[in-house]
C-alpha cells in the first residue's frame, strides 16, 4: 500500500495575531508554528495504522520553505517513512494543490490523505482541488476508515448525520476528528527521523486567482454586562429586548 499524507503548518493555537505593511501582511515575528492538528493527529496516524496492517510506505508531502522542515521531521518521528518538500511558500490553496498534484501524479498512491482543514483559515479547499486535479474519488470528513485489499470502507460526517461509504482505491480522504488517536513521538522515533529521506522538489509556476488585499482585527466586544445570578428574568429580558436574540 502506497500512502501519502499532505501536511500543512499553522500558527501555534495561542499565537498573537497581528499585521504589518498597512494591514496587508501577517506579522510572523515571534509566531511559533505547529503541524496542522488534523494532519498530525488524524490523517498521519490513520495512514500509519493502515500501513501497520497491510504493509507499504507512508510518505509525507509539504509545500513550504526550508524553515518548515521541523514540522516534516516531527511527522517522520511519529512514524512516516520518508518525505517530500516542495520548495515554495505557497500563496493560496490552488498553489498547494497544483504543486502536490504535479509532484505525485505519476506516483500512483493508493490513498492520499489531507486534513479536514487548516485551522487558521478553515478553508477546506486543498483536498477538493487535489482530488479534481488527480481525478480521484474524494471522501471528505472521514471519521472512521478501514481498508481491505483495494476496498475502503469509511464513515463520513455529512452534517447532522453520518454516512457509510464504500469505494475502490485509489482515493483521496480528508481526515476529521475521530479517525485515529493522536500519537506522541518517542525518543527512538525522533532519533530515526534524522536519517529518513527528505526529498526537496522545485515548484512549478502557478498563477494565483485570488488575493488577500487587507486584514482587519474585529472590534472587541463592548465590556461584558454582569447579571445577578439570582435574577435570570433580567438576563432573559436583556436577551429579548437589548440583544434581540430570543
Amino acid at each position, binding site marked *: 500500500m502506497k500512502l501519502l499524507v499532505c501536511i500543512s503548518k499553522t500558527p501555534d493555537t495561542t499565537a498573537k495575531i497581528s499585521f504589518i505593511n498597512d494591514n496587508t501582511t501577517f506579522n510572523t515575528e515571534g509566531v511559533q508554528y505547529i503541524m496542522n492538528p488534523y494532519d498530525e493527529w488524524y490523517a498521519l496516524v490513520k495512514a500509519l495504522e493502515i500501513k501497520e496492517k497491510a504493509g507499504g510506505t507512508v510518505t509525507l508531502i509539504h509545500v513550504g520553505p526550508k524553515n518548515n522542515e521541523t514540522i516534516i521531521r516531527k511527522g517522520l518521528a511519529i512514524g512516516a517513512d520518508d518525505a517530500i518538500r516542495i520548495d515554495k511558500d505557497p500563496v493560496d490553496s490552488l498553489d498547494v494543490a497544483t504543486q502536490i498534484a504535479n509532484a505525485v501524479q505519476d506516483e500512483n498512491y493508493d490513498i492520499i490523505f489531507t486534513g479536514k482543514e487548516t485551522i487558521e483559515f478553515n478553508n477546506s479547499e486543498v483536498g477538493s482541488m487535489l482530488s479534481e486535479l488527480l481525478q480521484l474519488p474524494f471522501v471528505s470528513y472521514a471519521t472512521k476508515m478501514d481498508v481491505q485489499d483495494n476496498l475502503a470502507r469509511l464513515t463520513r460526517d455529512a*452534517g447532522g448525520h453520518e454516512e457509510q461509504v464504500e469505494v475502490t482505491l485509489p482515493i483521496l480522504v480528508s481526515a476529521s476528528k475521530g479517525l485515529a488517536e493522536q500519537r506522541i513521538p518517542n525518543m527512538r522515533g525522533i532519533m530515526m527521523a534524522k536519517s529518513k529521506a527528505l526529498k526537496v522538489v522545485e515548484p512549478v509556476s502557478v498563477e494565483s*486567482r485570488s488575493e488577500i488585499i487587507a486584514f482587519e482585527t474585529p472590534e472587541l466586544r463592548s465590556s461584558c454586562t454582569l447579571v445577578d445570578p439570582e435574577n435570570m428574568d433580567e438576563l*432573559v429580558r436583556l436577551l429579548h429586548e437589548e440583544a434581540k436574540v430570543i
Partner: protein
Amino acid sequence: MSVLVYAEQNEGVCRKPAFEAVTFARHTADLLGTNCIALTIGNPSNASELGSYGATEVRNISLGWSHFDNLVYAKAIADMAGEVNANVVVLGHSGQGRALAGRLAIRLQAGLVSAVNSLPELVENLIVRKSVYSGKAIASVMVKSPRSVFTIQGNSIPPAKKGTPVEVVEANVTLEESQIKVQTLASESGAISLPDAELVVSGGRGFKGPENWGILEELAEALGAATACSRPVADSGWRPHHEHVGQTGVAIRPNLYIAIGISGAIQHLGGVNNSKTIVVINKDPEAPFFKAADYGVVGDLFEVVPRLTEAVKKHKSG
C-alpha cells in the same frame, strides 16, 4: 454571463443555507447586472421558493440515485455553469459545498474564496470578506480571474426576500453514474444541526460529568437551541464528538451562544467568537471567557442554569 447558485437540499427540502446562498448570488448578479440562476439536484419540494429570494430561474437535475458524490455533482454543476455561461458559482459552506467548491474552481479555472461572510463589493473585481486566523481577523479577498466560486458561511448573510416563486425547469444536464456506494447511518433528525443553529447552549468541564447534562438539555429545549461542548468534554466521552466546538471542532456563529462551565481557552474561542451574542455562566469571575462575553453571570451553574430555564419558560409562555 450569469450567476449560478447551487441550492443544496437537506432531506428533500431547501433550507436556510440554500436561501443564504441565493441571497448572496442575487446580490452579486445585481452588481454585475446579470441573471441569478439556481440549480437543485433531486427535486427538493420547495425549489420554486428559491425565486422568492431572488433566483430568476430554477433548474433541477432529477436523481437516478440518491447519495452525494462530489465527483459526479461537481461535473454536473460545472456543465450547468457552462450551459448558462456562469462567471460566478455560489454554494453554501456546508460539507457538500466544501467538497464541491475546490473541484469546481479547478474545472472552471475560477478563483475560489470559501467561507465568505459578507455580501460582495465590486471595485473592478469582486471583493468579499471572510474570517481568518480562527476568528481573530477578517480578510478582504479580491478575485483576480474572470470566473469565481464562493462558498457562503452559514448564519452570516440573512436570507432576504426579493421576487416571487418561479417554475422549476428540468435541467439539460445529467448526472453520471457514481463509483462510490453510500449508506446513510442513524440520522439524528429532530436534533438541531449545530452548524446551522441560531441558538446554541454549550457545556464544559464545569459540569463535572455526563450525568449532569440534563439541566443543560432542559435549557436547550426551552430555548429551542442546539447543544455543544468543549473539547475535553468530547474527548472524555461525556458528549458525542460532533458537539465539540472550537478551533479543532466545529466553528459556529449563532445569534446566541451560551457557554456554561467553560473557561474560555483561546482554542475554544477560535470556534465561537463570531457568535452575535455571547453569554457566559461561570463560578470563577476571573475566567477568561468573560472578556469575550456580552453578558456574564458569575455563579454556580448547578443553581443558575435551572433558574435560567425557568425564566426562559416564563418568557415564552408570557
